[in-house]
């Protein structure tokens, strides 16, 4: 087990994190029904304040439906960069408590607490230390063995409170909890409810094999979580140092083609960063500051890490096409945030040879040549061109130029 792994976990959860970030900037939202628009689905709601929820507004609704239910609803454009910056700040504060910090989603993170007893004492004291560092009134804390128990404990805690599940009490604690705390999709949730299963205890009372037969691998995992039979450790990951390339437009740009070209340029620039040498990019991100405030951000995780610009920008361009920024862009940035070790040139060609069989040799050769050029930052493939083939001086007849198929 790695040094950054921990069986005991503290779950730190601030529900509606993005909306709370917005409310911190605009206090008038606190006393009025408010909702945040979804960053990736234009015209739909993402997070809904309790006041709006009381009026019947739900996440995923269209703006039209929501306004119909609650005419005084305050709608906010999302600012994902701000939310993630705030979340990064939160993670950094947690990092001061323990070296093992694992982000789960915006507003929720796990802190590995193995070995912290020597520093702080009992689990209650560890939790108190976390609260001392993150003095947010909406923070809910849970402590237990494994991420799931700590998460369920946090979900049961009152705002500003904490629930500690002592070792050995996990089963009894979990049994009384509703199945909604499980990582379920809505269809599975409805199916379980229809079968009369409403609590984790009810699910754990069923034979494991029967649940697996009904719900497959997911069912087996759910059963094990509900029965407290699995302890998923917190795994802290060394934070990668991101490579960022950014540009500020002379005048705000809304044209998607121009933004697409700018993404290409920025990706090229980031690929040329010396720190990238020997690494392929696994996670690429585009961020934009918009003209009238607000921001736009997309993150793409590549199935196959790559050092090729077209592959890196393809998912960003798709998102640009289908979920474009809500306004003109003042500043655009491309960031590489996670990496995979690079392959050798030999492997590169081997892979591209397979691509050649599928998609044509020329295309594969073009990709291989571009990747070599980007990785080694100098051309190593050349084409012979005639310069003065009639010359009596041999060195003047032909020359090499960088090969760009």
């Amino acid at each position, binding site marked *: 087990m790695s040094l950054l792994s921990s069986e005991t976990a503290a779950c730190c959860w601030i529900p509606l994190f993005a909306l709370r970030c917005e409310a911190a900037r605009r206090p008038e939202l606190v006393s009025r029904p408010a909702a945040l628009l979804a960053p990736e689905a234009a015209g739909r709601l993402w997070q809904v304040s309790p006041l709006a929820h009381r009026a019947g507004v739900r996440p995923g609704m269209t703006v039209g439906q929501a306004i119909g239910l609650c005419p005084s609803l305050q709608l906010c454009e999302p600012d994902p960069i701000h939310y993630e910056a705030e979340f990064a700040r939160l993670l950094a504060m947690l990092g001061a408590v323990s070296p093992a910090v694992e982000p789960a989603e915006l507003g929720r993170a796990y802190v590995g607490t193995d070995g912290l007893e020597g520093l702080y004492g009992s689990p209650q004291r560890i939790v108190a230390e976390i609260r001392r560092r993150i003095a947010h009134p909406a923070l809910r804390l849970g402590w237990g063995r494994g991420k799931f128990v700590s998460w369920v404990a946090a979900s049961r805690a009152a705002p500003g409170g904490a629930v500690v599940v002592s070792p050995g009490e996990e089963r009894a604690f979990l049994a009384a909890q509703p199945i909604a705390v499980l990582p379920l999709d809505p269809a599975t949730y409805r199916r379980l409810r229809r079968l009369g299963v409403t609590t984790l205890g009810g699910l754990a009372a069923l034979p494991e094999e029967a649940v697996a037969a009904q719900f497959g691998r997911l069912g087996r995992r759910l059963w094990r979580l509900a029965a407290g039979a699995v302890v998923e450790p917190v795994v802290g990951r060394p934070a990668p140092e991101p490579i960022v390339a950014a540009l500020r437009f002379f005048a705000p740009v809304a044209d998607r083609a121009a933004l697409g070209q700018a993404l290409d340029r920025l990706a090229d620039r980031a690929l040329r960063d010396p720190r990238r040498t020997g690494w392929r990019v696994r996670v690429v991100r585009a961020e934009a500051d918009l003209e009238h405030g607000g921001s736009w951000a997309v993150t793409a995780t590549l199935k196959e890490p790559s050092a090729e610009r077209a592959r890196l920008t393809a998912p960003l361009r798709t998102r640009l096409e289908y979920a474009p920024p809500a306004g003109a862009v003042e500043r655009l940035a491309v960031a590489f945030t996670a990496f995979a070790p690079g392959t050798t040139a030999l492997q590169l060609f081997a892979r591209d040879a397979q691509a050649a069989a599928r998609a044509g040799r020329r295309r594969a050769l073009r990709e291989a040549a571009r990747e070599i050029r980007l990785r080694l930052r100098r051309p190593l493939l050349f084409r012979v061109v005639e310069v003065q083939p009639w010359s009596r*001086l*041999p060195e003047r007849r032909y020359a090499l*130029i960088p090969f760009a198929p």
Partner: protein
Amino acid sequence: MVPPARAPLRADPLRALNAPQPVRVELDGRGLPARVARAAGGKRVETVGEIWRVDDEWWRAPIARRYYEVVLEGGARVVLFEDLVTGAWWLQRPA
């Protein structure tokens, strides 16, 4: 497609193919290459084949070369030329 006006204009760098490499040449009593060395040691010239002269560009920086096609010990066939302006020797691959 017209390139953007602000883009820097830059031609792809050309690299001469078969550029001459400097060598040291020892001559025999007849003034023909007898030994060729690019580093320590060198190789003996086994056969001297064709010899020809090139004079060119007399109107600007004159070029005057005497070429020797030779076979070195081990069987390598190369072309040597003496720069008749500077007296330096150079080696090239045969055309």
